């Protein structure tokens, strides 16, 4: 299936979902006023992907900021991945946070507590 590529904007993250490698990247800010509109194509891609998973799925969450409405959409995204995982496919979430960004770390821990997926908290040194 086609790789989903969406460029970043001041309010939306860069998206690269590659079915061949199983790597799903979200990077940047997710703060649109209408998050559903942004996340619908991502969820549609994930639905198609869920029927033809061939390799381990590794989610790279490299978010700088996300707003309240995105937080619900991100949870739905993880819940869909949870279904994929429960079908016997290996799914890992790498949750990135800057070294002194305890809020982003805590946000990752919140998702980790809600969904049944393995989360790796990855600390990044500031450039």
């Amino acid at each position, binding site marked *: 299936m086609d790789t989903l590529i969406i460029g970043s904007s001041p309010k939306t993250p860069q998206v690269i979902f590659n079915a061949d490698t199983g790597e799903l990247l979200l990077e940047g800010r997710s703060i649109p006023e209408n998050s559903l509109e942004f996340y619908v194509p991502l969820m549609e891609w994930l639905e198609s992907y869920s029927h033809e998973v061939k390799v381990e799925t590794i989610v790279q969450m490299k978010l700088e900021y996300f*707003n309240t*409405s995105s*937080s619900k959409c991100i*949870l739905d995204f993880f819940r869909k991945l949870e279904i994929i995982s429960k079908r016997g496919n290996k799914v890992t979430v790498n949750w990135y946070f800057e070294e002194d*960004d305890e*809020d982003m770390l805590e946000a990752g821990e919140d998702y980790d507590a809600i969904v049944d997926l393995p989360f790796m908290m990855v600390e990044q040194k500031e450039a």
Partner: protein
Amino acid sequence: MNFNLNQWFSDNVGEDTLFYYKGSVGTKRVTDILEKIEAIMDEKNFPMRERRKIVNILIELVQNLYHHGEKFEIDNDFKSYGSIIFSRDNEGFKLISANFIKVERLKIFSDFIDHTNSLGADELKFLYRRVLANRHYSEKGGGGLGIINMIRKSGNKLKYYSRRTEGDNFFLVISVKI
């Protein structure tokens, strides 16, 4: 004494104010406000930790104005109305947002803030996770997630007050110390 918007504004904008805005809050304006406040923080070399907290809370406040700001019934210049004031004093940073709100929403809102303000850190974490995990979804409102988020991230209670106006809507002011 009748509520006077201009008077309220001049009472709350002072020497410590780094940025203020009053007027309609559409999607373009949300972006402008964020960009301007981030440019000010760049220029003044704000520490990254404070900067992140300010941006996080600012996003909640400004988008709350976008989704929920009612019009000022007495002055029809604005289709909707919101105000943001960003200040820095000896104690730290302060973000103030103000908007008009229908009386029925004001009661729900103030009850939820009072309850959330009374919680400790672990209770806040538990409440946040419970509300986030709740499957009911609204594009406009996250069931109070924004309020919980602001209290968690600022580490401070939210202060608020409201004023009756000559119209049906109330004027609601929220203040967050960071």
